[in-house]
């Protein structure tokens, strides 16, 4: 287990480097446009040249990257072109909202996906068909469209939940959750159906395994078989899918935070895109990559915890 984790952790570093280089190359190699983009079409050549100098855009790209990476290692991701505020402090201010959304969504995906999948594996028939229909909807329909449908149903037609806005957790857990109900539903629908489908298939497979018959034949009760053996065996492949759902929930915040006007990293990403504030966007990209890598690491750990073949190999 420990060697496996070390191997995975060692892989994280090149991963972050490659991802940031790609992001950086994309962001910096476009000739000249960055300074012009900031200053607009009417800027004089002199002012553009001055800005290029100031941003270090005249340096070769690898030198720009090196400068950026060296300060990034020290926890400095540069400053916003737009406001001059350090990128790190901007991200820190926005992080709690997105973290709340992604975390709650992942919990919902896990809880709802696993229980729906198990239910459908056991009951089959009607539950299975409903799940199929809902999952097609949840998977195919873009999350922002679902979000808008949710708003029009539960915030406008029937006024149960707030249509927009965020309440920090410091103001109480109740209001915090209340404000996040609709966004979390919109973010977790797709992942929930993915996990539920996987869970149904693997639970059906587990139910047909010889060891289930063996346990039954030797007197172990259905509840133990289900919550202990079937659940654990079926959870192993579902964990990977849960990881995919968690990452999808994270990147989905780009759309969802805009629909619900939540001050998180997702809405920040669109805002800085409109402002051409590339250092901030780069910072968000690196942060999202980091979170995605952490999620995949957690998935690997859970996988190893559940599957002794991986752990003891």
């Amino acid at each position, binding site marked *: 287990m420990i060697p496996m984790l070390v191997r995975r952790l060692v892989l994280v570093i090149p991963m972050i480097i490659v991802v940031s280089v790609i992001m950086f190359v994309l962001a910096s190699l476009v000739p000249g446009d960055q300074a012009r*983009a900031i200053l607009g079409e009417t800027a004089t050549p002199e002012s553009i040249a001055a800005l290029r100098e100031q941003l270090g855009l005249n340096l070769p790209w690898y030198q720009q990257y090196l400068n950026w990476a060296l300060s990034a290692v020290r926890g400095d991701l540069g400053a916003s072109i737009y406001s001059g505020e350090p990128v790190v402090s901007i991200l820190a201010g926005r992080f709690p909202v997105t973290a709340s959304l992604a975390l709650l969504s992942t919990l919902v995906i896990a809880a709802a996906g696993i229980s729906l999948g198990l239910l459908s594996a056991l009951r089959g028939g009607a539950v299975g068909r409903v799940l199929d229909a809902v999952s097609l909807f949840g998977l195919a329909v873009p*999350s922002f469209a679902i979000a808008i449908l949710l*708003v029009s149903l539960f915030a406008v037609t029937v006024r149960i939940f707030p249509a927009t806005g965020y309440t920090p957790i410091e103001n109480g857990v109740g209001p915090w959750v209340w404000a996040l109900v609709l966004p979390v539903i919109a973010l977790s629908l797709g992942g929930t159906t993915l996990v539920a489908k996987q869970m149904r298939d693997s639970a059906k497979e587990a139910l047909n*395994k010889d060891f289930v018959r063996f346990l039954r*034949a*030797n007197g172990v009760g259905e509840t133990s078989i289900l919550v202990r053996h079937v659940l654990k065996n079926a959870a192993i492949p579902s964990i990977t899918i849960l990881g995919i759902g968690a990452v999808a929930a994270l990147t989905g915040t780009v759309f969802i935070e805009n629909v619900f006007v939540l001050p998180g990293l997702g809405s920040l*990403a669109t805002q800085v895109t409109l402002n051409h504030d590339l250092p901030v966007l780069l910072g968000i*990209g690196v942060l*999202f990559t980091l979170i995605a890598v952490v999620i995949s690491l957690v998935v690997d750990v859970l996988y190893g915890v*559940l599957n002794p073949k991986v752990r003891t190999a």
Partner: protein
Amino acid sequence: MTSRQGSPRVIASNRRSLFVDVLRKPMGAVSIAYLLVVITMSLMAPVLATHNPLTQNLDSVRLTPSAEYWLGTDALGRDIYSRLLYGGQESLLGVAQALIVALVLAVPIGIAAGYFGGWFDWLVMRSIDISLAIPGIIVTLAVLAIFQNSMFAAMVVYGVLVSASAARVIRSVVLGVREELYMDSARTTGLANAQILVRHVLPRTLGVIIVQAAMLGAIALGVQTGLAFLGFGPQPPAPTWGGMVGEASSMLQYFSWMIVPTSGIIVLTTLAFGLLGDAVRDANAERIERPVRGARRSAIRPAADAMTTAADDVPDETVLPADETALLSVRDLTVAFGAGENEVVVLDRVGFDIRKGETVGLVGESGSGKTVTAMAVLGLLAEGGRVVSGQIWFDGVDISGYTRRQYRALRGTKMAMISQEPMVALDPTFRIGFQIAEVVRAQHKVSWRAARRRALELLEAVRLPNPQEVAKLYPHQVSGGMAQRIAIAIALAGRPQLLVADEPTTALDVTVQAEILDLLRALQNRLGMAILFVTHDWGVVADICDHAVVMYAGQVVERTTVERAFGDPLHPYSQALQRSNPHDAPKGIALPTIGGMVPPAGRWPIGCHFAPRCALATEACRDGRIPLVSVQEDHAARCIRIDAARVAREEALEVAR
């Protein structure tokens, strides 16, 4: 029993095109038709639009549908229908751009990686791993920021980013195709790699590629409309689907109609992509699994009908009353799977006894019904199976009608089971000690600590050295023989009176087989339990059993003591089985085999089930139900040619000498 023999057949030549198969599925046809209509209408927007999409009419703002404005008007009085037509051009073009880029990258890379393998595959897979960690939507936003809000650039880059996951799926399919038989032969006949790829790999991968394309289409449309919704891409007043949803959502409070057609078109179109993908996947899976046509179905249908009449109420003359001294008395047990039209009888009036402490062998080929019989005794018939008639007397009580709960109380404590594949009988995710303790606790209300102590005792009882160490291991860390000992330990946890052993030695090495049989014998002597031993191996019957019950095609064809079963087998099937037993066959002579196969349930012949394979069969054998004839005490056979069979056997033995 079901006849799921043979692996899915692969057809290299595609007689009917995948396209036709997809069209035959309602969902496939509807989604293709819908997508064609949407694409055509968008392309023909200049012709089909009823209004100029940009013309404002401030006298008619926020209208619901009417004859003039089919889908109503927006906040500036522009016709929603016409704007949706023009907006579709932008959205569908974006989808096409992302799709083309993604496929142009993913198809060759995925196919090459899967086909050539080696370092190239390694490199591709690592790159894919890394690119999957890139937050695609953030990079796409960066592109929008740099390329002056160009939706074209954004969709192209997004296509690059999503190509990784598609390439991975395609690679794994190609990997499978490469392993298949016809590929090997194609390779040896000297086709060039390029030819193999185009002729064999691409056609087999096409279905998966289309499924991926449909899924990517749905995702790309979501991203394209999502970005437009966020205000990227063409700016107002240019119509875009996403932008119109944005307008609609901003006036949701006072004009909620507009959200219906605008988000509706996006929802329907993404659903169409999703459904198309599902339909292609289903059609593709069916093509791969579809066997050669007409090969099996038509076989011997009338026999099934004959069977049901034969099994009807004619009492079997040899049905004895339950033996009161027996621990288990199975009487007239008939089991069927399915219901109504599809009902298939798999056990036909099976009967036998097991006394306390005795071992009875249930012998037969696969398909004879021996395992179904054992499972029926345990109350563990597979889904769809049920006892139609007959009784299972256990310790003086008929348990055939027991409920699940009643059976549960019986299993473990009164009867227990060990099975054929010890390695898969144990849950791979729990430690061995835990699994034994769990069974102990299922039967006795004891603490976990006490259960674990008992688990160690049980491991010792099955002669495993170092029980402490073994308890800490996982199933994959022990050998097959150890696993079977552990399974026996679990079965013994509740001190059962009857142990059902379903081919417990079949999967093991010969030396391990002997050890397990020794162990079972020793445990039986010590604990006095009876064993129902399901096997196809006459050697095992000779080794451990007191009585033998021979089964063929759902019926007991002979039952007697082991001595008589070997010394004077009466049924031609029992005789043939013993002749084909490798254990005591004379060396140098080809082992005689029984021609033909056990007929599957539902296609049993009228009359003697064995008649089609029997050298002695006469017209009378095929004529009606053959009764089980008691020749003497403790010996009965289901045969009307017993005398002829005896003579034939004597002659055969003579020749062998």
